[in-house]
């Protein structure tokens, strides 16, 4: 194993409760610099709630989220704004601003956080659009004119607008055909290597996990089991066994073995 990298994101004993329903009960999670960390769990296990908690969209009943060693709950508004400029996030359905073109969408975080002349901004935004593998003519299109795969890429370009060190992706390959999903995985790997990004992603896609992730956290029984990909597949928990060795996983192994 490589020597431990610094912890870039830490979730400490998070408790999330909605009415009588406990979603997380003392959930711990650590992400090291340059990890590609996959969050896995059954539907309704609280993956999205966890991501929303980390992004500060949802306040946990107790526990803390630390990004770069700083507790988000204890930061002032200005400090929080600075932390937010330091990470990028994509949402499940893309969440592109529907009234803006792709180019304007990518420029949006720059307008908010950087004081740059308009041409420089446009050029940087075009750079990001090209970096995620979108053809240049997508820049002038509106989100409603894009295909599902393009929306995911455009959302990634927007998340990369400020050159974050940390990237959160919510189901980046859901709804894509296997070829597009594989292309997206390839893009993610390439960006991870080139830009030395730390990536935290929610995904159901076993292919994505095996192609891109080095560490995986599985939400089971309202907590998280975290380990390297190589070791988590042997975890004794029945759900984890079923997930990594169930019918779909076997089909995948056979396919890749053949």
């Amino acid at each position, binding site marked *: 194993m490589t020597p431990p990298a610094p912890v870039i994101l830490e979730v400490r004993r998070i408790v999330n409760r909605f009415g009588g329903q406990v979603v997380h009960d003392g959930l711990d999670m650590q992400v090291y610099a340059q990890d590609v960390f996959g969050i896995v769990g059954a539907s309704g296990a609280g993956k999205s709630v966890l991501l929303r908690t980390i992004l500060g969209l949802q306040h946990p009943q107790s526990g803390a989220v630390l990004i770069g060693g700083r507790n988000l709950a204890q930061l002032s508004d200005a400090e929080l704004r600075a932390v937010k*400029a330091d990470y990028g996030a994509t949402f499940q359905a893309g969440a592109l601003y529907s009234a803006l073109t792709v180019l304007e969408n990518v420029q949006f975080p720059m307008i908010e956080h950087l004081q740059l002349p308009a041409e420089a901004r446009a050029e940087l935004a075009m750079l990001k659009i090209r970096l995620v593998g979108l053809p240049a003519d997508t820049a002038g299109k509106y989100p409603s004119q894009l295909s599902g795969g393009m929306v995911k890429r455009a959302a990634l370009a927007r998340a990369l607008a400020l050159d974050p060190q940390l990237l959160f992706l919510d189901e980046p390959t859901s709804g894509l055909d296997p070829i597009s999903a594989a292309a997206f995985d390839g893009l993610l790997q390439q960006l991870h290597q080139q830009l030395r990004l730390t990536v935290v992603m929610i995904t159901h896609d076993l292919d994505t996990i095996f192609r891109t992730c080095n560490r995986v956290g599985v939400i089971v029984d309202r907590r998280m089991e975290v380990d390297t990909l190589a070791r988590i597949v042997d975890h004794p928990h029945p759900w984890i066994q079923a997930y990594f060795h169930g019918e779909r996983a076997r089909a995948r192994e056979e396919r890749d073995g053949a």
Partner: protein
Amino acid sequence: MTDYLAARRSADTLELRLRGEWRALRLKEIGAELTALDLTGVRRLVIATQDLALLDLSSAWRLREFIATAERVGAAVSFSGARPERLQILDDALARVAFQHPGAPAHESHIEPVTALGRHVVIMARDARAGLAFLGRVALTALAAAASPRRLRPIAIARHVYDTGVTAIPIVALIAFLISVIIAFLSAQQLQKFGAEIFVVDLVTIGVLRELGVLLTAIILAGRSGSAFAAEIGAMCLNEEVDALYATGADPFELLVLPRILGLMIALPLLTVIADVIGLAGGALLCRFLLDIPLTQYLHRVSESIGPMTFWVGVLKAPVFAVLIGLAGVYRGLQVRDSSRELGRLTTVAVVQSIFVVILADALFAVLFMEIGI
């Protein structure tokens, strides 16, 4: 010596030591330091990157621009230490596709006003045709529903009567009360000069029953329910819920359009009656306390000034206004496509148009009633 670089000039050589964290968030400061450098007469530019803690893509882009500028003035650029790999990534990415700025179309016509006018006319014509088609479909759906009452969706209609009618009672009552008090007060001031205070009652009665009760109620509902229809259906369009209805073989006109319009057609006349009653009560209150006309005399005068049709003239207009408001709201809602901005724009259009058509229709009614002598 600055935050992001140290420059040393010797004869025709400029040596730049980059340092610190070059990141997008500091691009403005980095850019300022780079532009402050004097490149005149520089033959050799040496960039040292050993002290550089971080160079992200955006600042690498800025550095690349700077190198390009230096090369343009004739300097040979070299690196002491490694050439940052981010520059290589940029070279690769930028080499892949030439930069195309998606700006305005190159060709700008100088007969712009004429083109604009033509485009406007075409859009209006299309809009009118689409509006007509919409009316036709609503009418057909209504006819089909009338033939088989199950398709009238009574539960949905009841919900819309509640949403557009019952919840609007407080605001309609308040406005009717205030308006009748204002009319009574203004007319009392004028009529007192002639000693004709008693005619205040006539003015309030006829004004509220024939015109103001129904008109104000309609305008309130245009703002309340017309906008709600447009926004609700518009959001459903954005969310592909309307498409889902079509896909399951359900008719959105039957499920969304007709119940709203019928609900409003029931609610608006009832609200008009409430507005009439509260308006007359407001007039009574003012007459009692400002003009010392006792309630019995007020009621007597009201029944004298009221014609056989005065009340019905107001109430009969209500369903017509309801149809107009409902049609405008639903029609604009169904037009929402693609973006949240459209939703806002069309909701505004729905409200403005429904108020406009209500007032227009009221004017036409006035002419009509005058001609047939009611």
